[in-house]
């Protein structure tokens, strides 16, 4: 089955600390993209970070970075120096041709 699994329904982190959100996926393709999207209370989906499967180097965007383990089919998101504005649902997604497969999401709470 072509699935994306987020095993942590909810996570909490203290402000200024670091948190890692987990994602595993299944695919038989060799060329695909992986994404993390943030969905704040407004519910608009905002792209956080993108990783091309053919690239071995882990993607980074300011305080956000990923740990991409292609053989293990793992794609975790690390948020450093967490801020109150990081509180949201986070969705992992994998691309197929013209289609995305989304995980069920992880709700991140940031504690002041």
């Amino acid at each position, binding site marked *: 089955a072509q699935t994306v699994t987020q095993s942590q329904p909810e996570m909490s982190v203290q402000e200024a600390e670091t948190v890692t959100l987990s994602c595993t996926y299944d695919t038989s393709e060799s060329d695909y993209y992986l994404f993390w*999207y943030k969905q704040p209370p407004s519910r608009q*989906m905002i*792209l956080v970070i*993108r990783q091309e499967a053919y690239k071995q180097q882990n993607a980074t965007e300011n305080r956000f970075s990923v740990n991409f383990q292609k053989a293990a089919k793992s794609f975790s998101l690390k948020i450093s120096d967490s801020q109150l504005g990081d509180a949201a649902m986070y*969705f992992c997604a994998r*691309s197929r041709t*013209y289609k*995305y497969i989304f995980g069920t999401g992880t709700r991140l709470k940031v504690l002041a």
Partner: protein
Amino acid sequence: SQTIHQWPATLVQPVGSPLSLECTVEGTSNPNLYWYRQAAGRGLQLLFYSVGIGQISSEVPQNLSASRPQDRQFILSSKKLLLSDSGFYLCAWSVRTSGRETQYFGPGTRLLVL
């Protein structure tokens, strides 16, 4: 820069009434367009995608249909709404190349069917 618009933002409709949700994209040409539905507390389910005018692919059998009358316009419709059609509907676009590119989402429409 590219922008994506959806309207209405919120809609409350009675069971059995018709539906029309509209999505338009500005600042790009020949985009791939997508309709997703998100039930409360759940992930996103792809409903339809389109790679060109008049070209619609349906992912799941349902009470909904989609049309693309213009290059940057994508419409989600129903002739008769069901209670189960309630949810949050998101439109998205991507550059039309290999189909693996980043999808950018609109602000969404909250639909409540009573």
